[in-house]
């Protein structure tokens, strides 16, 4: 096995990992603020992927342009989901929240199955097969663009939380729910906004991912688990942790696929998850719970 091959695989792993990281970022932001684990996360992303493939099939809209309408729609969807369904569940026990989101995920995935059938769908754009060459190292164009978009989105979200008043208010909610209420913040509205933002992250990640993988309804539960692994490894509620976790999982899956066997790659991820949970339950970048 040549050195170049390993470098290529690792590079592809990093780039794909950044897109995974953006997906996980959505989960992390939602958990960090609302304290509800979104067990329908991968399912939501699958919907975004279908939206991107449909927009491409109908209007030949490039997935990178589809990002805008899809993420706006997902913001609204996330907002509505939190305001209408999840807000009343915030004080309920964890297993109750779990069942609620499992039910949402079940409905979403099977509605997709009813509408589009089990066959894989994909988009074909001309730059998908092209790559940048740096000596012997090849970088897929689509993968690089997708990773770039993921990083930009993450930066935008990071800036939003740092700079804007609303962003600061949301962080205040995350730090101390009760005190936030005392100073007069509309916590429920901010929760809905947060879920909307998390869903928008998922939408961007989903659109970008349609260029890298074919979409089927069964992706949903897989990506939910993947997002969990990333977020726990990075630290639930930590934004930087989600991106780093994404890269870590992306690289380890790529290497495991190359060195062991493609079907064993997620075993490595789950093994990593177990080790991190036991040794450092707050994750690599998380604060102590």
């Amino acid at each position, binding site marked *: 096995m040549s050195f170049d091959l390993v470098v290529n695989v690792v590079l592809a792993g990093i780039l794909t990992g950044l897109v995974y990281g953006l997906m996980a970022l959505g989960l992390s932001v939602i*958990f960090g603020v609302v304290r509800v*684990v979104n067990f329908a996360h991968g399912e939501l992303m699958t919907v975004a992927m279908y939206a991107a493939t449909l927009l491409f099939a109908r209007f030949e809209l490039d997935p990178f342009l589809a990002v805008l309408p899809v993420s706006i729609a997902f913001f609204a969807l996330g907002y509505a989901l939190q305001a209408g*369904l999840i807000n*009343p569940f915030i004080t*309920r*026990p*964890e*297993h*109750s929240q*779990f*069942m*609620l989101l*499992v*039910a*949402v995920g*079940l*409905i979403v*995935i*099977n*509605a*997709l*199955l*009813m509408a589009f*059938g*089990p066959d894989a769908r994909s988009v074909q754009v001309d730059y998908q097969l092209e790559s940048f060459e740096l000596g012997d190292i090849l970088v897929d164009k689509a993968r690089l663009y997708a990773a770039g978009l993921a990083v930009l989105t993450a930066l935008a979200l990071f800036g939003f939380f740092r700079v804007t008043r609303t962003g600061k208010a949301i962080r205040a909610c995350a730090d101390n729910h009760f005190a936030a209420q005392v100073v007069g913040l509309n916590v429920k509205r901010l929760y809905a906004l947060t879920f909307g933002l998390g869903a928008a992250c998922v939408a961007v990640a989903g659109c970008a991912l349609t260029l890298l993988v074919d979409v089927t*309804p069964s992706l949903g*539960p897989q990506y939910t*688990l993947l997002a*969990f*692994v990333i977020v*726990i490894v990075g630290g*639930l509620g930590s934004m930087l942790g989600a991106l780093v976790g994404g890269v870590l999982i992306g690289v380890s899956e790529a290497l495991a696929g190359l060195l062991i*066997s493609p*079907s*064993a790659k*997620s*075993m490595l991820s*789950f*093994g990593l*998850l*177990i080790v991190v*949970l*036991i*040794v450092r*339950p707050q994750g690599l970048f998380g604060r102590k*719970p």
Partner: protein
Amino acid sequence: MTRAARLLAILLVAAVVFPWIAGPYALSVATLILYFAYTSQAWNVMMGFAGQLSLGHALYVGIGAYAAGALYYHLGIGPWAGLPLAIAVAALAGVIIGWLAFRFGVAGVYFALLTIAFAEFTRIGFDHMAWTGGPGGMFLPVAERDHIDLLHFRGPPALYYYAMLALTAGALALCARLLDSRAGYYWRAIRDNEDAAQALGVHVFRWKLLAVAISAGMTAISGVFFAFYYNNLFPEQIFSTGRSIEIILGSVIGGVGTLFGPILGAAALTLLSEAVTAALAALGWEVPGAKQVVYGVVLLGVVVFLPHGIWPPLAHRLGIRR
């Protein structure tokens, strides 16, 4: 005799005579109901009694099924030797997971995710284990179905029905005893306020571990049943997160922490699932996914509108305390 005991006795008699009046289809549905009722009851010991949320209970079903299945498949040793082995291995797995989690303070959502991680890890592990057939599955030799061979747990469908009925009734009795025992009181104290329980001198670590061991061991028995009832085992099916959710559903719908909730919930969900299948077939609308959508919507409705499950309000209506 209390009202609850009378109702239970009537139900038990009805369940015992059921195979004489039921056709093969009704009997298979009833067996499925009991299977889910029993397994959910086992999960309930951990979550409903001791407050430890496991989302990976398929792990113990799978371990039990593969332990007894492999023993039969490779060595020809029947389920009566496989059963204690299955219980022991699953309980050990539960204790290891519980030990790691409780020792290192993994709690709440993190504990729940840890249980998923172990189940998924094991699923992929079995996918790569040639000795148990890998992803291609393990097929137990199927013997003749018309005469009863208790030694190898082979016989007509009614045999499996009665086995499951005995397990469900036994689990109900065991759980009732447990709940009123010293362990039951400690568990409920831990569930309601772990810090307070610890402050009062309850050895929280030990009692939580006991709950996991009992729950895992009980769950392994349904795994053994699964192996000898269906005669085929695939890691993809038996360890999947979907299976874990199925196990939980009965209790959540029926009422977490109640004794009769898991049974009622399992019956309601299984009958609903069958009814939806039949209704969609009658309408000629058999699109893949349609059944699960209806199922999901009903689930959503119950979770939203009946936060404590269907048994507590029903029990209240019937004038039963618990």
